[in-house]
């Protein structure tokens, strides 16, 4: 045993002694040898094309897409086109799904329930609560997702997203964060939880924490539909009809870009205060452009993203529907719980340019951002006591067109300001429960999880407050 130990130590000491002899730069010598070997082998096996014949078109594209002047405008333009296609394309199928699931299936279910004599509360919870919530989520979420995700995946497969990161990289380094944060931010556009797991590519713990905390500023799957719908209803309606699609798409791009700006500001703030330090260097490889496989992309983005997100939304919408029905039907002193809460927060919400309904909707929708809009609409109808739309108190109803949604919201006292603030608040509020859990798993720290959770809310409150005050000073006077 002892002999074995001495043998082993002898190996180590031999190595220690020889380390001085081979000199400090032996690591470089080794790397050089590897490169030389690799190059010699390559020379024997590879015949390269005569120069200038090919490749140049890729370089040309890169020069434009990542150019100092055109890089950002092109990025805005591409994102804008994607949203415009989504907004223009989703309206009709949405209406068709709604008329099927809500106008046809819902009454059918109700009559079945009546036929078998379900008690009113069970019928309410199951059919008016859970089923309608699910129907709403499907008809509002499915069409935009089925258009948006394949387009986004095509961009990803083509190799455009790493170019976005390349454009953003120097900005992130300038604010003291890791350049790879640009990559994880871009992944956050799909799903924040995925973006946070992707921060594992960042070696420095300091920079990784910054990337984790700021990932929530990338608009995610669950929030795109909210942005798109509200932009369509209010921003699009504020301009002539032929401009509506373009202007609402531009508004969504603006919010997405604003999110990037906030992630830069917060990264800067963190790296200058609690997470001080220098940005570390790294190399970002631009992958080659690859012709996307369109059919496969359609298939996988439908399975991996659309169905996945939709399923998640449904899973969370069903219990939320039950909760909504309950708060809308259980009364204290003749007033429903929902109304009591809404009236109680209204003064505070008014300062923020929002309303009590939105605040309550965000509380009910903490598990998943996807169900914010359905919840908002349902609560609005309920608190107004509108009985001519939808199926009455505590029922998530469906609207056969965007205009009908608009009528409800305007009846609920919504203005352009409310819409803008909702879009801002949708960008700046706590991450969803899955993301919060992921942050905890990745950081193993309650402190940073809490910071990552509450920092965006505080910012959301501050931003909507100032926007509201300035709006009321300028526009309403």
């Amino acid at each position: 045993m002892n002999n074995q130990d001495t043998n082993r130590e002898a190996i180590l000491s031999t190595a220690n002694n020889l380390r001085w002899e081979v000199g400090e730069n032996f690591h470089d010598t080794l790397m050089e040898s590897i490169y030389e070997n690799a190059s010699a082998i390559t020379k024997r096996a590879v015949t390269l094309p005569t120069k200038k014949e090919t490749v140049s078109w890729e370089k040309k594209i890169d020069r434009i897409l990542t150019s100092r002047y055109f890089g950002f405008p092109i990025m805005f333009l591409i994102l804008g086109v994607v949203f415009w296609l989504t907004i223009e394309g989703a309206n009709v199928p949405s209406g068709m799904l709604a008329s099927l699931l809500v106008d046809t299936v819902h009454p059918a279910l109700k009559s079945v329930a009546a036929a078998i004599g379900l008690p009113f509360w069970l019928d309410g919870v199951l059919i008016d609560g859970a089923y309608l919530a699910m129907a709403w989520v499907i008809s509002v979420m499915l069409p935009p997702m089925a258009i948006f995700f394949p387009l986004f995946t095509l961009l990803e497969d083509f190799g455009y997203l790493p170019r976005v990161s390349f454009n953003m990289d120097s900005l992130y380094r300038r604010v003291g964060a890791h350049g790879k944060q640009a990559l994880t931010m871009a992944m956050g556009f799909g799903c924040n939880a995925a973006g946070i797991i992707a921060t594992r590519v960042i070696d420095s713990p300091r920079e990784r924490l910054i990337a984790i905390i700021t990932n929530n500023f990338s608009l995610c799957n669950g929030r795109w539909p909210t942005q798109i719908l509200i932009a369509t209803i209010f921003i699009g309606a504020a301009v002539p009809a032929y401009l509506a699609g373009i202007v609402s798409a531009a508004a969504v791009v603006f919010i997405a870009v604003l999110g990037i700006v906030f992630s830069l500001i917060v990264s800067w703030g963190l790296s200058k205060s609690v997470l001080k330090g220098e940005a570390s260097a790294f190399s970002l490889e631009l992958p080659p452009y690859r012709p996307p496989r369109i059919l496969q992309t359609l298939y996988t983005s439908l399975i991996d993203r659309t169905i996945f997100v939709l399923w998640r939304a449904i899973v969370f919408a069903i219990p939320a529907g039950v909760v909504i029905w309950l708060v809308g039907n259980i009364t204290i002193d003749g007033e429903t719980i929902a109304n009591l809460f809404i009236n109680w927060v209204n003064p505070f919400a008014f300062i923020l340019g929002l309303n009590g309904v939105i605040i309550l909707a965000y509380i009910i929708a903490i598990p998943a951002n996807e169900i914010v809009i359905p919840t908002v609409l349902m609560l609005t109808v309920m608190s107004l006591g509108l009985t001519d739309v939808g199926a009455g108190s505590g029922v998530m109803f469906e609207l056969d067109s965007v205009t009908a949604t608009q009528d409800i919201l305007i009846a609920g006292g919504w203005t352009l300001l409310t819409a803008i603030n909702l879009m801002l608040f949708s960008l700046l509020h706590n991450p969803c429960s899955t993301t919060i859990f992921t942050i905890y798993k990745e950081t193993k720290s309650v402190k940073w999880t809490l910071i990552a959770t509450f920092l965006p809310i505080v910012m959301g409150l501050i931003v909507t407050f100032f926007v509201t005050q300035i709006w009321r000073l300028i526009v309403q006077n």
Partner: protein
Amino acid sequence: MNLNQQNCEVCPVHNAGNLKRLGIDMKNFDFVVALAGNPNTGKSTVFNNLTGLKQHTGNWPGKTVTRAEGGFEYGNSKYKLVDLPGTYSLLSTSTDEEVARDFILFGQPDVTIIVADATRLERNLNLVLQILEITDRAILCLNLMDEAERHKIKIDDRMLSKDLGIPVIPTIARYNKGMSELLYSIDEIVTGKYVCKPHRIKSKSRELNFAVEKIGKKILEEFPALPNVNWVALRLLEGDQSIIDSIRNGDLGKIYSVGQKKLELESAV
């Protein structure tokens, strides 16, 4: 008739029909196969092709940050396939590189498939050569051959295979091309039909070669079964703490004696 049948059985295309994708079922596997390579060369695509799983793939460097595992069955053997994070080298100290290196070194895969981008062969070979220093059972999967063709790059895969001392399989993983040849090659290595004679890096520095040789001799006295003495010697020269530790506590010897035992068992059968 009989002759025909035999011919069919040795043909890799016929054997592709024997691939059974087991998804996440990795019970009672006989062999472990690792997937290594530079970022964004299509490791996850190969992984999905062989296991039938749907790891999200994308045109992104650094998409796989964790180890993914799946199973497949081919030619009466069950395999566990491990998708490692993409790395450019095994010589630095970032976490994803350590995951890949430690798995190839300590996880002792029976075969390591190195997926390389055919359009960027020279840079990919840097990693290939480093992996060949650690393990002597590897296959080079020359992926993205369609892009190489598009860029009018011609690769003599036989020459490459001769120089590297391992099988070289040209593939287009996105279109599932070359997978049966790859499977056939995996089978040949684990059954010992193909014996790799991996290329070992030759350095021009006489001092370095001398030092490596001297340390190598010492290591062999203590751990005679070690197949990659030179690499361990280099790591010691660099002062790699995890290798120093594995020498002190004898883990280095244990790993290889386990590998040895498995080989002995196989030859006994």
